[in-house]
């Protein structure tokens, strides 16, 4: 980290959180300064400061999504990439359930990601007809579904599998494949493909 950036970063952090500048400068002289954000519990900060750091991290995650969307193409060519991508979009969303659909080209690059529906705290509706329309509009070859469980459970329910099957059945005759369905709960992501619960016909995507 360039020293100029380190100084301004530490000063801004101190001003924003009320933590002593001297204290974090001492820490940064022997450690990576970014650990203050990445590992907020290592400095024995008070609860208020840790909460603020966690909020900053979440804000940064959103900022990163927007910046990356501007700067580069997102490729969801593995379950891991898909989980990370949707975690950044749906992680820690606990107010209500949201269903996101990513429409991908033949190289698994994201053409567009949309919020397909929003529901109550534990349910969001699925409208395959609208997903088909948007998939055709985007000339997509693959789609990936993702939704959040506002509770902490990341278990894949029978309803989740049934909903996936509805979308698979709607898109399959058009030659558009559903590559995965990611379920997010808090900071955890589960891939239906990885879990072996994805309804047929599934696809192989590791490239």
């Amino acid at each position, binding site marked *: *980290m360039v020293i100029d*950036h380190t100084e*301004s*970063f530490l*000063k*801004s*952090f101190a*001003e*924003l959180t009320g933590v002593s500048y001297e204290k974090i400068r001492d820490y940064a002289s022997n450690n990576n300064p*970014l650990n203050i*954000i*990445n*590992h907020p519990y290592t400095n024995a900060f008070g609860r208020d400061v840790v909460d*603020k750091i966690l*909020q*900053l*991290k*979440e*804000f*940064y*995650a*959103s*900022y*990163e*999504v*927007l*910046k990356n*969307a501007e700067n580069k193409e997102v490729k969801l060519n593995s379950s891991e990439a898909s989980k*990370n991508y949707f*975690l*950044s*979009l749906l992680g820690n969303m606990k107010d209500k359930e949201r269903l*996101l659909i990513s429409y991908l080209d033949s190289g698994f690059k994201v053409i*567009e*990601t*949309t*919020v*397909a*529906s929003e529901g109550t705290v534990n349910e969001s*509706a699925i*409208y395959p007809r*609208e997903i088909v329309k*948007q998939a055709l509009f985007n000339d997509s070859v693959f789609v990936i579904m993702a939704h959040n469980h506002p509770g902490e459970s990341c278990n894949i329910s029978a309803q989740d599998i049934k909903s996936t099957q509805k979308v698979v059945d709607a898109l399959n005759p058009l030659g558009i494949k559903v590559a995965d369905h990611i379920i997010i709960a808090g*900071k955890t992501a589960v891939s239906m493909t990885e879990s072996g619960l994805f309804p047929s016909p599934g696809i192989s995507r590791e490239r």
Partner: protein
Amino acid sequence: MYFLRIEEAEQERMAELLANILELNDIDRDIVLRAIENKGIDCFLGNPRLFGLSADICLKISHIKTIVETLFREGVDASGH
């Protein structure tokens, strides 16, 4: 059923998070929500004074800008890995 581009959803989320970090009152919170929605996050973080916020809040926003830009420049993964 409706479609919302993910950038818009993300901006709404950012505005809420920012309001929480800044511990804003309802009036200032509304200003932030509308400013980010209408002008985008970069414009807002770069020019908070344009939106009628107090000098104290503008200063805090400049600190947040410094922090997130540093993290982004250093390529920090938001998941912390």
